[in-house]
């Protein structure tokens, strides 16, 4: 079976001969009409472990050294080369467009934890009225998180807009009190992008967020239904 890491432009540099991926299997490319598929041999779909996740991303980062690829989601295996070629062929137009969209760019992710109004400890409820009151309080707290998330996203977008080619707002997860924003940024603009966010954070003690990247453009490569 073949394990898929990413799909790179046809002009990109293949992996070095000694380069290996998951299960220490050598990584090679399969050349199609319009792209290079980075793959390795595998007996079965790999388990989801931190090491395998790192190896998956590591291979993609190697591909990124020359050209920005379309990173594959973890876990995709194909029975053989013919099956992989058939899948690629079925989505060729979208893949080609996708490669063009991310050319010369990387993904940066901003993740923020949101402070919420501290609520008093949840007392035990003994009546329906108390239960409904508690529900209402929880809903207010969740609404508060959503509003804070929108405001934070707006502030981040305002300073990064000149450097951002595309933006995806993550769903605000009220339970985790976190919000994320993914940006597609030209490689040459990454340092300025970071500097703007650093200045924003340093200038406002109420803001708390983390910037990660550059990543391969995981968030910007979905294949639309064809």
């Amino acid at each position, binding site marked *: 079976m073949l394990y898929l890491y990413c799909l790179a432009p046809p002009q990109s540099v293949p992996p070095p001969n000694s380069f290996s991926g998951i299960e220490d299997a050598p990584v090679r490319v399969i050349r199609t009409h319009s792209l290079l598929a980075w793959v390795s041999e595998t007996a079965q779909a790999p*388990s989801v472990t931190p090491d395998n996740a*790192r190896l998956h991303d590591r291979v993609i980062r190697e591909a990124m050294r020359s050209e920005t690829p*379309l*990173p594959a989601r973890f*876990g995709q295996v194909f029975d053989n080369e013919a099956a992989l070629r058939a*899948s690629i062929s079925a989505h060729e137009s979208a893949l080609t467009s996708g490669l063009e969209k991310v050319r010369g760019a990387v993904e940066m*992710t901003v993740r923020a934890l949101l402070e919420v109004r501290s609520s008093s400890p949840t007392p035990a409820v003994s009546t329906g009225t108390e239960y409904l009151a508690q529900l209402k309080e929880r809903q207010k707290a969740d609404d508060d998180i959503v509003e804070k998330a929108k405001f934070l996203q707006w502030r981040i977008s305002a300073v990064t807009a000149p450097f951002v080619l595309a933006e995806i707002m993550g769903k605000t997860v009220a339970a985790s009190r976190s919000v994320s924003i993914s940006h597609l940024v030209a490689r040459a603009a990454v340092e300025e992008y970071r500097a703007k966010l650093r200045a924003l954070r340093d200038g406002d003690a109420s803001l708390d967020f983390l910037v990660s990247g550059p990543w391969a453009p995981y968030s910007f*490569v979905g*294949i639309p239904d064809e």
Partner: protein
Amino acid sequence: MDTSNDSLVLAELLNHVLDKGVVLQGEIVISVADVDLIKLGLSLYLSAVERRESMSGSREEGGTRRSLPSPEK
């Protein structure tokens, strides 16, 4: 390397590779080795941030906040 940052980087890595990226197949069969890694990733993230906050001190005391390193090498 700072343990809290390790956890944050891992959580972000899992969020990217497991939840995003090109999908050529209709279904992806993922075998989970031990635990629910998505839930673990989020837990790592939250606990790592809490640890970071308790370790870094206040801004005025010189606590630093920095970008996450990319999880390479």
